[in-house]
């Protein structure tokens, strides 16, 4: 997972608002759900970018917009230098080939009436130039083999597979068109612990083999750390902190990141009595009416008047080498993952 220098995907100021309407016939516009509200980043070749945050922070909307399943309200993105959101028709179809998605729930993201062969081979029907017709069955079998499934099971239906195997089917489908970017939206959170490790390993080896870039969206912070080169922390539609895994996990500077990390239970009972935990009060505010200034201020212990008036920019600050959107950013170590004391 070496950091390549060439940028595959570049995103500037991405915004996605969903309109809120009232009334059945005459839909009155009453507000907006600000699901994604100004997100920018660059994704390099062969890199894994982790996106973490609580439910409702806009991480899945981000995935949908990046795969052009939803049109953004504003903002730009370039995939291999080409404008992703300006493209239409044939141009868009060609771009979509380059960016694929693996969904969270392997139970609902596979059509129960299609065989595995049909599911994994469907991308070839849409993009026939990738595999000529006579070649397709062999290609599907190869793909099943790559993701660790028995190619002989090509005529089985999704219900005949376990959750982990279904997720492999979803990954095979994502790989079919040889994309350069795969957006993984919570790919392991529906799986059992012992199966999770298998799928994470598979994603890692596929990345090396096909030189893939991943956008890895998850709420499990230890899994994200394991697989990501860089991590963005999202809160209410915005990235509040951005850095490589060391910076985010060892020296988090934004209070939200610190709270999030300290809330993760450590899988080691040793020293649990002395563990310092930042317990946030309440739930995240509604994205319809986010707080003025800093969006985290309503749950933040550092909040001052300045936070309500002025929105902090996502920039490096004195004493913090990586960008953090907090007026009072200050690195502080909070424990996250088990140390070497566990059996290995």
């Amino acid at each position, binding site marked *: *997972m070496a950091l390549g220098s060439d940028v595959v995907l570049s995103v500037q100021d991405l915004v996605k608002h969903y309109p809120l309407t009232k009334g059945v016939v005459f839909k009155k516009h009453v507000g907006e759900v600000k699901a994604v509200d100004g997100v920018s980043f660059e994704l390099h070749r062969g890199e894994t970018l982790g996106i973490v945050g*609580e*439910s409702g922070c806009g991480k899945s909307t981000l995935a949908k917009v990046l795969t052009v399943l939803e049109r953004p309200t504003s903002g730009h993105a370039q995939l291999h230098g080409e404008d992703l959101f300006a493209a239409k028709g044939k141009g868009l179809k060609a771009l979509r080939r380059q960016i694929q998605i693996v969904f969270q729930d392997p139970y609902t993201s596979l059509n129960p009436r299609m065989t595995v062969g049909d599911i994994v081979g469907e991308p070839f029907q849409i993009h026939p130039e990738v595999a000529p017709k006579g070649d397709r069955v062999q290609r599907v079998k190869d793909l099943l083999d790559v993701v660790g499934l028995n190619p002989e099971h090509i005529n089985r239906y999704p219900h005949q597979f*376990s959750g*982990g*195997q279904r997720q492999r089917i979803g990954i095979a489908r994502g790989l079919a068109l040889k994309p350069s970017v795969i957006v993984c939206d919570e790919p392991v959170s529906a799986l*059992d*612990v*012992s*199966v*999770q*490790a*298998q799928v*994470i*390993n598979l994603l*890692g*080896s596929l990345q090396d083999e096909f030189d893939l870039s991943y956008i890895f969206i998850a*709420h499990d*912070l*230890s*899994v994200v*750390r*394991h*697989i990501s080169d860089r991590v963005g922390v999202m809160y209410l539609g915005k990235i509040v902190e951005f850095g490589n*895994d060391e910076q985010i*996990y060892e020296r988090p500077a934004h209070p939200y990141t610190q*709270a*999030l990390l*300290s*809330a*993760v*239970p*450590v*899988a*080691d*009972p*040793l020293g*649990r009595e002395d563990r310092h*935990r930042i*317990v*946030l*009060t*309440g*739930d995240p505010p509604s994205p319809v009416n986010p707080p003025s200034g800093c969006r985290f201020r309503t749950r933040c212990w550092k909040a001052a008047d300045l936070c309500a008036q002025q929105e902090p920019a996502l920039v490096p600050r004195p004493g913090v080498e990586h960008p953090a959107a907090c007026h009072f950013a200050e690195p502080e170590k909070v424990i*996250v*993952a*088990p*140390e*070497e*004391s*566990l*059996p*290995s």
Partner: protein
Amino acid sequence: MTATDVTIEPGSESTGDEPVLVVEDLQVEFRTREGVAKAVNGVSYTVDAGETLAVLGESGCGKSVTAQAIMGILDTPPGFVTGGSVRFKGTDLLKLPDKERRTYRGESIAMIFQDALSALNPVYSVGRQIAEMFRVHRGMSKKDGMAKAVELMELVRIPAAKQRVNDYPHQFSGGMRQRIMIAMSIALDPEVLIADEPTTALDVTVQAQVMELLADLQRERNMALILITHDLGVVADVADTIAVMYAGRIVEQAPVYDIYHRPAHPYTKGLLQSIPRVDAKGAELYAIKGLPPNLIRVPPGCSFNPRCAYAQDVCRADPPPALERLSGTRAVACHFHEEVLHGSRQ
């Protein structure tokens, strides 16, 4: 030898009395069209006042079914309790007639479910649902019940409880709904609380709040807590004793430090090894190969043998290894527990 041969006494304070809840050799099977699935196959555990027992396992290992059998809320058919006993302070609940058993539910043993949205009734206000506990079990009037409901909602730290008591479940966030479930479950001051994946559907920051609340309530009321989960992190934080389940059996049972630092069963060890670690970032994770077995066709011998690195011929032959006592506080069901304990991996 059956699993009944080992019943582990919790903690050090042995007063001669039996622990609050004793489950012994519990057997539950599901009779389906494809065959009979032994979902729970000789499970025994005990939990005492103030103690936290964590039942750890993957989906389908029988951890929730055990809880349902204890509560007496198993769907029959297809589920049937076919053997064993569940003793609450000496009374075998499985032998009681339905009507009598009802008096224990909520009053002595209460349960919290994973998905609060589907566990709460969407057409009644949360206050009414909490108050129902007092009306049915204590014969209180509606008004008194509602007053009690507000009290409980305050106890589980729901802000503006008085104003929100008439709200419906969908008007609350996931964390708040889980608090309402907790309020309902502790309403009648039960001595045993079973929490079935109480925080799985919640975000980590909310999970921390809910776990803290549960721990505080348990301490204040000296409740016995059975925490059913697959999350190795949550367990490490709160458990006193852990029972690891696999394919309907307890494969290892030990105090929390022993499980995490000296696992004696290959399955426990494998689970711990598959946690991503800081010092091995990006490296391949240890993964237990294969899948948990279909309970209708459990492999002969030790049910973990097809996935196990230690498996020998003896593991593939019936009977499966019995839960064998290693010391006063721990037990394991593996022919090669010595090798697993002392780290000679094969």
